[in-house]
C-alpha cells in the first residue's frame, strides 16, 4: 500500500484541525523556546541567549527538585500499578456489591485535587489532625506527616495514590475482562489453582492495561504539581520541591523567561524518559 492511497481525506478537510493545532499547540511551543532565551517582563523582553538555562541549572533547590520528581514519579507509579492490579483482579472476581465497590474505588478520582490536598493536609496536622488523633487513641504517637523532612514527600505521594488508583483500577478491569474465559477453563482442566490463574493468566495477559497504567502514572508523577502545591508548597524549606513547583515559584516571582527555560528543560526531560519507556513497553507487549 502506498502512502497516497492510505490518505482518505483531502488536505482541506484537515485544515481546521491543523489551524487549531498550530495556533494553540505548535506556536506556543515554538514561542516558549524563544522566550526561554530572553529576559521577559511581559511588557518587554531582551534577548540574553542561554543565560536563563545557566541560571536555572545553578538553582540551589534544583537537585532536590530532580530527585524528588523521580522519587515521586516512581513511588506513585509503582504503587498504582501494584495496587491497581490487585484491586482490578479483586473487583473482577465474583464478589458481592461489585459495581458499588468499583464506584467507591473510582470516587476519589472525581474530586478536585486541590480540595483533596487541603483536606488531607488538615487530617495530617501533627496534633489536631484526624490521622494522628486516631493513632493517639490507639496509643501510637504519629509523626508530623508533612513537617518531617524525611516523610513529607511520601505523605503527599500516598495521597496521590489514594486519589489516582481508581483510574488504574478501571484500566485493569477493562484489561482483565477482555481476557477470554477459555484460558481460565483450560487452567482449571489442567488442575491449576486460583493463584496460578492470577500469576500465569491474569498478570501476563493484562500487560497492555499495565503498560497504559505505567505510562499514565509515570508521566502523571513527573509533571505532578497541584497536589504538592496544595499540601506543602514545596516545604518545609525546599524539601518537597518538584521541578514543576520550582518553575511555578519562578513564574510567581516574575522571572518569566527563566521559568520558561525551566519548562523547556522539563519538556526535554519528560520526553527523554517517556519516549524510550513507551517504546520499550510497546515492544514487549503480548498479543492475545
Amino acid at each position, binding site marked *: 500500500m502506498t502512502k497516497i492511497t492510505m490518505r482518505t481525506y483531502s488536505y482541506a478537510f484537515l485544515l481546521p484541525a491543523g489551524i487549531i493545532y498550530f495556533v494553540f499547540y505548535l506556536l506556543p511551543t515554538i514561542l516558549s523556546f524563544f522566550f526561554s532565551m530572553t529576559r521577559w517582563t511581559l511588557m518587554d523582553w*531582551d534577548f540574553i541567549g542561554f543565560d536563563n538555562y545557566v541560571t536555572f541549572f*545553578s538553582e*540551589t533547590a534544583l537537585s532536590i527538585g530532580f530527585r524528588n520528581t523521580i522519587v515521586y514519579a516512581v513511588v506513585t507509579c509503582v504503587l498504582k500499578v501494584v495496587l491497581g492490579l490487585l484491586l482490578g483482579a479483586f473487583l473482577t472476581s465474583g464478589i458481592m456489591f461489585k459495581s458499588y465497590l468499583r464506584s467507591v474505588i473510582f470516587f476519589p478520582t472525581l474530586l478536585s485535587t486541590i480540595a483533596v490536598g487541603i483536606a488531607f493536609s488538615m487530617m495530617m496536622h501533627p496534633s489536631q489532625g484526624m490521622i494522628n488523633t486516631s493513632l493517639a487513641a490507639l496509643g501510637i504517637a504519629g509523626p508530623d506527616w508533612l*513537617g518531617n523532612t524525611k516523610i513529607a514527600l511520601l505523605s503527599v505521594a500516598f495521597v496521590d495514590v489514594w486519589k489516582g488508583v481508581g483510574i488504574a483500577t478501571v484500566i485493569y478491569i477493562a484489561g482483565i475482562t477482555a481476557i477470554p474465559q477459555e484460558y481460565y477453563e483450560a487452567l482449571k482442566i489442567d488442575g491449576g489453582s486460583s493463584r496460578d490463574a492470577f500469576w500465569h493468566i491474569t498478570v501476563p495477559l493484562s500487560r497492555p492495561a499495565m503498560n497504559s497504567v505505567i505510562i499514565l502514572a509515570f508521566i502523571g508523577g513527573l509533571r505532578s504539581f497541584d497536589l504538592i502545591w496544595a499540601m506543602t508548597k514545596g516545604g518545609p*524549606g525546599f524539601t518537597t520541591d518538584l521541578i514543576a513547583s520550582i518553575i511555578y515559584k519562578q513564574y510567581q*516571582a516574575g522571572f518569566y523567561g527563566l521559568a520558561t527555560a525551566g519548562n523547556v528543560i*522539563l519538556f526535554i526531560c519528560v*520526553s527523554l524518559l517517556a519516549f524510550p519507556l513507551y517504546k520499550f513497553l510497546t515492544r514487549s507487549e503480548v498479543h492475545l
Partner: protein
Amino acid sequence: MSKTKSKTIAFVTCVLLVFAVIAGCGGSGGNNQPAAMNNTAEAGGEQTSGNSNSDTSAEKTTITLMVGNTGTTLEALKVVAAEAEKKLNIAIEWDIKPDGTEGDNLVKTRLATDDMADLLVYNSGSLLQALNPEENFLDLTNESYMANILDSFKETVTSGGKVFGVPVGSTNAGAILYNKKIYADLGLTVPQTWKEFMANNEKIKAAGKTAVIGTYKDTWTSQLFVLADYYNVQQQVPNFAEDYTGNKAKYAATPAALRGFEKIEEVFKAGYMNKDFLATTYDAGLKMLAEGTGVHYPMLSSALDAINQNYPDKMNDIGVFAQPSDSADTNGLTVWMPSGLYINKNGKKADAAKKWVEYFVSPEGQAVLSGTLKAVGPYVIKDVALPEDTYQGVKEMQSYFDEGKTAPALEFVSPVKGPNLENITVAVGSGISGAKKGAEDYDKDVEKQAQQLNLPGW
C-alpha cells in the same frame, strides 16, 4: 496491521502526551485565576438619594479601582468611595485582586495587556519599581497635595525623579508583638538587647507557655527575624543597602546582616517555639498571642488590626517592641511604608481618577479613611495625627518615631529582594539548614533576581 501505522500512532500519542505535560505546566504558571470579581460599589450605593437625584445622575462618572482583599483596606476604601461619590459624583467600581505573588502577576498581566483599572492600590518600594512606573502610571510630582506627603514615603514611590503615588493608610513596623498581661504576670520587662530577649524567653518557657510563636504554615511569617533586623544592620553597616544593591555586600559575608538568620536559628535551637510551628497558621498565631498562650510574636504591626477584628477586648494586652540588637545602644524599628495609590496613565478616565485621588489625600478624605482603617503605625501625611482610639501597641511605636529611631525596611531602599527568602527562613527556622547556609542560599537567590531585573553590577 501494518507496522508503520502502529508506529505512527505510538509516536503521535507520545507527542500528544508530552504536549499535555507542557500545556499543564504552562497553565499552572500563567493561570493565576483572575480572582477579580467586578462588583460595583454596593457599599458606596447607600444611594445618596436626595443629593445625587437633584443633580442629573447621568453625569455620574464611574472609574475602576483595583485593590487587594486582605485586611480592612478594601472596607475602608469603600467608605471613602461612598463619601467621594456624594462630593464628586464619581463612583468606584471595584476590581478585587489577590494579594501576594499571585496579585503581582495579575497586575503585571493586566498592565501588559493594557487592561489595568483606572486606579491601583499596590505596594511601594521594590515591587512598584518592577512595574515600570514611568510607562504605566501618571506623574503626580507637581500636584499641590504632594507638599503634604512626607519625603520618606515619596522616595518609595519615585522612579526617574518622578513621584507616582499617594499613601494608603499608615506605616507598618516589623517588630515583636508581645502579650503585656503575661509580661506583668511573670514580672518581665521589655528587653533592650537580644540577650535579654532570650532570657525572657527562657522564663516564659519555664512558665509553661510558648515563648516565640512560629506560624510557618504561612511561610511568609517566617521572614520577620531577618527583615525586621534591618534597623540593626544599617546602624552597624550604614552603607549596606547601597553595597548590597551594587553586588558588593552579601548577607553571608556581613556579620551584622547574618545575625538575622542566626536569630532564627537560636530561637529554634533553644526550643522556644510552639510544638507544631510548621503546621500553625498566621491566624492561629494571632489567637495564641491574644489569648496569652504565646507571648512573643515576631510580626508586622499590621497584625494588630487583624487581632482587633477577632479579639477587640484583648487589644490593650498587646504591646510592640523593636527587634532587639546585640547592644542596648542600638534599638529601633524597621518600618514598612504604606501601599500607594497610583493612576493608570493609559486609562480613559484619568481626569476623574485624578480628582478622586485629590479627594482621597485631602484632610477630609483621610479623616474618613482612618475612621475605618485604623492606624498600625504613624501616618506619612503631614498634619494627620494618630487619633485618640489608636491601638495601645501603635502608641508604643510612636516613641521610636519621636526619637528618630526608625529605618525603612531594606525592600524600600533597594530593589534587590530574593523571592525565596520565606522558604529559606523556614529551612533555617526548622533546623533543616544552618544560619550560614541559609544566608548563602539567600545570596544566591538574590543574585538570580538581580540578574532578572538586569541591575548594573550583577
